[in-house]
């Protein structure tokens, strides 16, 4: 994601992160190598189906990677930020900080 000099901060916000739940999912994943589905669900306090749906949106956008595996007979799903997702998150946070720091902007 490139930054254009003079571009207003709000134009650098990532549309996928404007959704409150997706924002929380990405915020949780940003501090982790990977998070288990259950830990992520508990962290963002939502249902399995809602989380699955939003993870799919983020995965389709290339912002996260989903890994499905088995531990014994039990399926285990984990998610992590992709490199593109981590870059987009940093850009998004920086834009938010700029907006927060300059009330006239945005």
């Amino acid at each position, binding site marked *: 994601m490139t930054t254009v000099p003079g571009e207003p901060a*709000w*134009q650098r*916000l990532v*549309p*996928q992160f*404007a*959704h*409150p*739940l997706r*924002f*929380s999912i990405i*915020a*949780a*994943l*940003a*501090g*982790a*190598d*990977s*998070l*288990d589905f*259950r*830990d*992520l669900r*508990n*962290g*963002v306090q*939502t249902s399995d189906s*809602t989380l699955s749906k939003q993870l799919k949106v983020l995965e389709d956008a290339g912002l996260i990677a989903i890994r499905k595996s088995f531990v014994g007979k039990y399926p*285990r799903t*984990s998610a992590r930020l992709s490199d593109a997702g981590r870059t987009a998150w940093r850009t998004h*946070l920086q834009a*938010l*900080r700029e*907006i*927060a*720091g*300059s*009330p006239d*902007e*945005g």
Partner: protein
Amino acid sequence: MSDDEPLPESFDAAQAREWLARADAVGAAAAASASWPAVAALLGLGAATSMGTMAMALTTGAAYLACMLAMFVWLGVSLACVIGFGRSHKLGFRRRWGGYIALWAAAYAVAIAIATSPQGRGVVGACAAAALILVVTVGCAWREARA
């Protein structure tokens, strides 16, 4: 929760601060939930091997074997804690975990050398050897909890 996304233009400074605060809170909670199995395992590892080291220095015969058996049971419990509950990992955990295990192994090797030396086969030497493992593993657990 709606799928509607607010237009980015709608963000003002107060909202931005609110979202940044939410990011910090969610990120901190996720990191905390991901670190406890590793912290518990490191403390279990340290407790088991430091007590085992004291047993190595201070006991013999059947008492020594009983202590070693207990130590291996606790090592198994610590390992199971990481495998069973360590589903999520903080950023950089795998690299740090290798360092923790290397530090613990080095401390344990030094402690065994102390405990099996003639000077170590006494209360003071045994306590010193156990304290070395305690300091290293508690330090690693503290580091992981704060990472």
